[in-house]
């Protein structure tokens, strides 16, 4: 009786994990489908390239207004620097997000 309970519990656990994994894959697939409909995807430019380009533009418009362009930083360092500059230079939330992406790549 006890063995049957253990097997049943294991089976339920595996089923749950499989369902969760399937749901996640499905969501990722939907995201990819959505990406296909974006102007960037239609023009053959990847989402990464678009956000990098936007980040570069925001970087030059905001950061280069005061100082020379710094080198790229490791992502966790860039996160701190961009948060500091968001406060000091009153960057908008979107500008900060795109600049962080650009500096981290």
């Amino acid at each position, binding site marked *: 009786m006890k063995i049957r309970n253990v097997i049943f519990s294991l089976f339920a656990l595996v089923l749950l994990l499989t369902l969760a994994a399937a749901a996640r894959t499905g969501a990722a697939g939907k995201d990819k489908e959505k990406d296909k409909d974006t102007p960037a995807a239609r023009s053959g430019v990847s989402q990464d390239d678009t956000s990098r380009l936007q980040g570069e*533009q*925001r970087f030059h*418009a*905001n950061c*280069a*207004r*005061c*100082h*020379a*362009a*710094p*080198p*790229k*930083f*490791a*992502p*966790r*360092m*860039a*996160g*701190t*620097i961009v*948060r*500091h500059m*968001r*406060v*000091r*230079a*009153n*960057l*908008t*939330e*979107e*500008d900060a997000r795109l600049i962080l*992406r650009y500096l*981290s*790549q």
Partner: protein
Amino acid sequence: MLGFTLLARKAMQAGLLCLVCLLPITLEGQEDLAKPIPILTGSTGYFTRVNGGTFQDAPSVSPLLLVPMGDKWLLEAKGSYSLTYAKGSEGYYEGSSAYGMPYGQIDYLANRYVTITAGRFVTPFGVYSERLGPNWVRCLQLTPMIQSVFSGSSLGGMLRGGFPAGSDKVNFNYAAYFSANNTHHLLATDRSTGGRIGFFFPGPRLEFGASFQQVLQLDRPHSAGVHFVWQPNRVPVTLRSEFVRQSGTKGSGYWIESSYRLSQIPYLRRLELVGRGQQFFADPKLTYAQVKKLGALGKDTNQADAGINYYFRSDIRASASYGRQFVLNRNVNLWVVGMTYRFVMPLGPKGNPL
């Protein structure tokens, strides 16, 4: 009064204890690769200045500690230390040191519109003091005279933020603060209130805004100012300007600065040419005693500066400038030559590029 002082000291001790206890917990929680880490940054510089024939050598260091906590908090603490060696009356070089804390503040990014700041902070007035102050950022090392007209440091609370104003074509930014009076000789601040608003147009890269400060002690003067920054898209030129006027005894003035990075010319792309003109108008009603007390702010002054900066790397820069100051009965030459180095050091695992 004694009870209040003790209470304030206890509160400060408790606050510091909480900070010390919270810091390791916060750092432990930052294992995720995307989480920001504490960093130590800042700049060092060594400058030789000649002011009206008087030589000065001035090495300096300004470390800045940045500690992010969670997704919304940031602790910022900046210190400054400088030595000045100048030739004394007997012909020997004498050294003097100066140190201080330009700011030590904690920021809470409440939402996309508001950031709450508390502690000691740089007064949000114009663009120079907050954004162009560090010696590795400023194009000319000599500070414009009008920076002494208003109170540059504050101790208290501030609300600030920046967000798109209706469309992507214009961003609105603001800062509003209240500062308490502090008489500590290193951390002195005035009891004051004020703020700044600004508009930034990302397309033409044009920014303009206005600032206001009301001092709430002594003769209660107020200061008002306007600023603009323009960086055309086609040419690597930056134009900046500020105007300030005070209602009290400190007069009014403006500066206009232009910098041109020769990035379009081969072999000269690391070079930057800078020029600045400024005028300061002392209050005409000053008495002799007030003129003596105010020093440089007691006399009408015109000044023109020209300089070059050479970027060895983005973080190492050599600078040289010449200026001519025209003051009543005393026209002087101002020479500055030196170097700056900006450092950034991670205080934790920095992660790999995305």
